[in-house]
Structure formats: structure tokens, C-alpha cells
């Protein structure tokens, strides 16, 4: 792995093609990650799937109509059908009782089907010159050239600039569209602008990741970033950074390892980042949450034993001078780890063990137990648990 990394770095420094590929993939990850953050926040995760599939007929149509394979021509075609698809989804949902998921599925599959029909026609009637088009299915970063990079970088810069320009509006739209409307913002028009930017971000990535898998570059970076921060600004930055990292790693790996397709490799890289974030992020991470819950449970167990011991001791005129066996405590609370809880109480100076193995509260422990009982903490109901 390390050797591969060093190899990748030295190759990156010397190889022009590889540098193009790496830069292009990183740029695509940056833009789709940043825009994806908004899509995920607005619960449009799967809209990206429909848009990217719907770009295929646009690409093939653009080629069939112009005979050109210039990146800008194909991108314009892709953007047009992708955009049309997103509008159709909105129309179906607004004008009928069909739900969003069904509308997405229908538009996605019929547009993609149209793409396949056109692709097969192009293959059969337009000769071999179309050979470059099926790389849009799964992407082929290795085929990126300087002209592609210029197109991608130009469009990417445009998208990011628009994002900065409308930052406040998009933020409001994503978190409280009704409030945005009440402030007099043109909500519908802003939604269309934001969705159009998403379409552009998707189109930029099609050549590298492919129409089938592009949706992952919308959803996964934002999902990963969401685990690390609660601030929109940082979310967008992080999502962009994660996307760029995955693009870079995936493109380099697929260029260096034989027969490793680019799109799937990038997707696996971003998925790995997302899964690691879900597990190990400090606040929202599942491991951290599990540890917190375990600590919490432990504390409750200790409190419960303290309460039991206090309830027993309170039956005696001199509470601190009344030792009780651990077995009694176990019988009272039916909880595991009574001895561990007693040990913890001893460590904090609230209880101590007599020579005969029985336990008594220290004066501090009596005070703590009374406090616990009086504030009504769990396991401290008076009158229950008579020995």
C-alpha cells in the first residue's frame, strides 16, 4: 500500500496524463461534494441518481446531432436532458398523486432507456466513430485530456462561484424554505437555480465516474461530512474535500492498477470515507455514541447500588456503621456488576469494604445516597426493597 502510494506520488509528479486525470477527478469530487451537501440536506439525495441517468440520452443526442465529441458539446447535451428530467420529476410530483420515489424511478429508467436506444442506434448506424460514448456509462478517467480538464474546471468554477454568490439564500432555502418565502425571497426560482447547479455538478463528473454511479458522488461526501460538523459552511467545505480526496485516490488507483474501472473505484473510495466517518467521527460517530451510552449505563448502575446501600443503611441509627453483604445488594437490584459498582464507589470514597467482605457507606457516601434518594433518582423509591 505504502509502495503504491509512493509510486503514485512520483508518477503524479512526472506523468502529464496522470496529472490531468488526478486533477480532473479531484475537481469533480470537489464540486459534486459541495453541491451534494445541499441536495442531501434538502432530501434530494436520489434526484442526483435520476439526473445522472437522464444525462445519457443528452450525451448521445448531442453527438448524433452535431457529430462532435467535444467535451463542451456533450456536456451541454447532458445538462439539458438532466435538467429536463429534474423538471419532469417536479411536475409529476406537483401535478399528480404520484410520490417522489416513483416519479424518480419512472423518469430515471425511461430517460436511461432512451439513452440506451440512442446509443445502440449510434453504434449501428453511425459507424465506429461513436466508440467513445459508452465510457460515459461507467466513466473512464484515463481518457481525460486537457480539453476535458478545461471544460470541467471552467464549469466547476462557475458552479462554485454561483454557490458563493447565493450562499445566504441557499442556506435559508435548505433549512427553512417557508421562512425564506416569508422574507420575500423567490423560493421557486431559487430552487430551480440550486437544482440547475446540481445538474451541472453531476454533468461535470459523468466522464470520470459515469452516469450509473454518479449519484454516489452526490450523497456519500455529504453523508461523510455531516458526521463531523453541524455548521453548513464547514459541511460544504468538508464534503468538497472528501469528494476531491476520493476522486484523486480512485483515479490514481485505477490508472496504476490494471483493469480497475475508474468510476467504481472512486465510488468505493468515497464509500469507505463515509463508512469510516459514520463509525469514528468524534461526536456523531456510532462508536463514540456507543461508548457514551456504555459510560452512561455504568454510571446509572453505580448510582443504583449507592441508592440500595443507602436504603439499607438508613434503617440503622448510625448509617455509616452498618455493613451489608454484596449478595444482599445483588438480590435487591438484580443488576450485573454489583461488585464493580462497589469498587467504583470505594474509589470515589463513598463506600468501603470491611475485613469480612461486607460493605458500608462512608459519611460522604451517606450524604451522597441521601441526595440521590431526595432528588428521586432511579432506584431510590422509599419503602421498597425491605431486607
Amino acid at each position: 500500500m505504502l509502495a503504491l502510494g509512493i509510486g503514485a506520488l512520483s508518477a503524479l509528479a512526472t506523468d502529464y496524463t496522470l496529472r490531468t486525470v488526478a486533477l480532473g477527478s479531484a475537481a469533480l469530487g470537489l464540486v459534486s461534494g459541495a453541491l451534494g451537501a445541499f441536495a442531501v440536506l434538502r432530501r434530494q439525495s436520489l434526484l442526483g441518481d435520476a439526473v445522472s441517468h437522464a444525462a445519457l440520452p443528452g450525451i448521445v443526442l448531442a453527438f448524433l446531432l452535431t457529430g462532435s465529441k467535444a467535451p463542451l458539446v456533450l456536456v451541454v447535451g447532458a445538462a439539458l436532458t438532466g435538467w429536463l428530467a429534474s423538471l419532469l420529476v417536479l411536475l409529476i410530483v406537483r401535478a399528480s398523486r404520484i410520490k417522489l420515489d416513483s416519479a424518480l424511478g419512472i423518469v430515471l429508467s425511461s430517460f436511461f432507456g432512451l439513452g440506451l436506444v440512442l446509443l445502440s442506434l449510434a453504434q449501428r448506424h453511425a459507424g465506429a466513430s461513436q466508440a467513445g460514448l459508452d465510457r460515459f456509462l461507467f466513466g473512464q478517467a484515463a481518457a481525460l485530456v486537457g480539453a476535458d480538464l478545461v471544460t470541467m474546471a471552467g464549469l466547476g468554477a462557475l458552479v462554485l462561484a454561483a454557490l458563493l454568490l447565493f450562499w445566504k439564500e441557499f442556506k435559508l432555502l435548505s433549512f427553512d424554505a417557508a421562512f425564506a418565502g416569508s422574507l420575500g425571497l423567490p423560493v421557486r426560482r431559487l430552487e430551480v437555480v440550486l437544482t440547475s447547479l446540481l445538474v451541472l455538478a453531476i454533468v461535470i463528473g459523468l466522464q470520470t465516474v459515469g452516469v450509473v454511479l454518479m449519484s454516489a458522488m452526490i450523497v456519500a461526501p455529504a453523508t461523510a461530512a455531516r458526521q463531523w460538523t453541524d455548521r453548513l459552511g464547514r459541511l460544504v467545505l468538508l464534503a468538497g474535500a472528501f469528494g476531491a480526496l476520493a476522486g484523486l485516490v480512485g483515479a490514481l488507483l485505477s490508472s496504476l492498477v490494471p483493469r480497475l474501472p475508474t468510476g467504481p473505484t472512486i465510488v468505493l473510495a468515497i464509500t469507505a470515507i463515509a463508512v469510516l466517518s459514520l463509525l469514528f467521527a468524534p461526536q456523531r460517530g456510532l462508536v463514540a455514541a456507543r461508548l457514551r451510552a456504555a459510560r452512561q449505563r455504568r454510571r446509572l448502575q453505580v448510582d443504583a447500588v449507592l441508592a440500595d446501600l443507602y436504603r439499607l443503611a438508613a434503617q440503622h441509627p448510625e448509617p455509616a456503621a452498618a455493613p451489608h453483604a454484596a449478595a444482599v445488594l445483588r438480590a435487591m437490584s438484580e443488576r450485573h456488576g454489583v461488585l464493580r459498582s462497589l469498587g467504583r464507589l470505594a474509589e470515589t470514597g463513598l463506600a468501603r469494604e470491611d475485613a469480612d467482605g461486607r460493605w458500608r457507606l462512608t459519611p460522604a457516601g451517606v450524604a451522597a445516597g441521601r441526595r440521590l434518594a431526595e432528588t428521586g433518582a432511579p432506584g431510590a423509591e422509599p419503602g421498597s426493597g425491605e431486607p
Partner: protein
Amino acid sequence: MNPDALASFALSAPQIEILAIAMVTAVGCALVGSFLMLRRLAMLSDAISHSILPGIVVAFFVVKDLASPWLVLAAAATGVLTVFLVELLHRSGRLKEDAAIGLVFPALFSLGIVLITRYAGNVHLDTDAVLLGELAFAPFDRLLVAGRDLGPRHLWVMGGITLLNLAAVTVFFKELKLATFDAGLAATLGLSPALIHYGLVTLVSLTAVGAFDAVGLILLVALMIAPPAAAYLLTDRLHWLLVVACGLGALAAALGYGAAAALDASIAGSMAVASGLVFGVIFLVAPRRGLLAEVARRRRQKWEFAQTMLAIHLAQHEGDADEEEESREDHLRGRHVGWTPAFTARVVSLAERRGLVTRAGERLHLTELGRGAAAKALAR
């Protein structure tokens, strides 16, 4: 029509077989797809159809036979696993369900593609076949039992799966219906929502595996969702929805295959387009829930509302000092009500035709019917 033209419409035996496979597949998909659509899980069919790929690939590496039933089982298991993973992620509370779907299936699909391209490059399992299906070759793959040709293997496989779906939907109709429309009540009555959910998901996965030869993974969602969604615009009864969805699915398959044969284009793609078009047409012209009906209704409501407003306006001023002034048509056109002349004329003539008002020059009189309409609108 001359005999030659007629002959060109006649289908050859392989074409009939392809058509039969396509239509049987469409019916099987529509049966389970209807419930996915109603349960708002349409995109789950997309997710399952993509993510069964690694299951198929891994099972293929083990048994080295694309026709093995183990492939079907492994792929179906992967489909169920996908749904399980999506729910696990969703339940962790860290991401929404759509994001969970969007995270899981591209990852599993990518895994499948990487496995194929890296390790199965020179065997009969290429990405195009998996993605797009190879229905055109289906008639060459025969089911031979004791040397006798029983027809295309795919027809038997898909026919079996479709019959299974039909049996499951028929036997558990009541349970599926209840769990779909009132999950809470179903749970109260002792039906396990999880059991029904995973039962459905298992059927969807099986159907996806069976259909993958015919239509490919990506276009499965077209046959699963578009016909039921179209049927949903035509009927409110579940059993009719199922029947109509199956019919529309078969129709789309037939139309799609016909177009593909005529154009010499991708069959799977053409069937998906046909499904989308069938939905599109019904979306436009469905009697009560179509777009045109909706537009017409909204327009009618606009005029009806304006007529009611007119009746209320006249009723409010009946018998008060301004009655003569307020009940004149030219007054309505003025600044007080703010209607344009054309709009006012249309509303008044519509109201007159409906018998809500009578006209004497510019002066409008409310009829008994109009008074009733105003009172009813105000009482609401």
C-alpha cells in the same frame, strides 16, 4: 394490404418467444412493483436491482455456471442484505432513508463491477449483458429435459417467478393490503410488519434476478414502477390496480419490443422508454387524476369561485342603501372589486347561464338559486 406487407407483420418463432419472455417479465415485475410503489419504496427496486450484482458475481466465481440456481439464491440474498443495510443505516439516526439508499447501492454495485472487470474479464459475464440484458439471444438458450426441447429457459424461469409472485400476492392479498395502507392496524392485528416487508423484498430480489437476463439490472425499475404508477392514476381499488398494472406492463413490453425490432435498437432500452411513454400518456389523459383533467378542474374551480364571489357580493348588498350602486355590472369592473372587464363579463354570463343572477341592463339581480349558493358558501 398486399400479402408481403402482411408477412412483415407476422412474427417469427424466436420473436414470439422474446415477446413472451418480455411480457411475462413485465407482469411479474408489475405484481411486486405495485406494492413497492404504494409503500413509497420505489427507489428500493432501483437499489436492489443494482446491488444484486456482487451476489451474482461472487456466486458465479464459486459455481462457475451462469445457469445455476445458486446464482439466483445468492443474488436474492444480496438484495435482502441491501434492504437490511439501508435500514441499519437509517435506524442509526445518522442519515435519512434516501441518503442511506444512495449510499448503499452504488457501493455494492461498484464492488460487483470491479469484481467483474478484474477477475471475470474473459468469461461470459460482461457488464453490458448484466446491465442491458440480452433478450435478443434468449431464444437460443433452450430448456432441454431428456433430450426434448421445452422452449427457452428464460421463459420457464421468469414464468416460474411470475407465478410465484402471483401466488404470493393472491394468498397474502389481505395481509399485504392491510400492511400497505395501515401498517399500524396490521401490527395491532398481529401481522408482523417486518415479516411482510422482508417477504416483499425477497420477492422483489428474486424477480430482479430472474429479470436480469431479460431486461438487465438498470431497466428493471422501469417495469417495476412505471406500470403500477400509471395504474394508480386510473383506479383506487387495489385489485384493479394490480390487474391494470400487469396489463400496462405487458403492453409496454410489447410496444417496446416492437419498436426495438423495427429500429434495430436496444430491446431493454426500448422497453423502458415504452414504459415511460405509457405512464406519460396516462399521466396526461387519465380521467380524474391526469394532468389535463387537473388543469381543467383548476380552471373550472377558478370560474366557479368567481361566480360564488359574485353571488356573495350581491347577497351582501341586498336591501342596503348602496344596493342600486353595488349591483351594477360596471361597478364590478370598477376599482371596488378589481375584476377586468373581460373577466367580469365572463363571470356574469356564466352566472347568468347557471341561473344565479338575472340581468336588466347593467343592473344584476340575484335569483333564489344565487341567494342559496351565496348562503351555502358563507355557511361553509
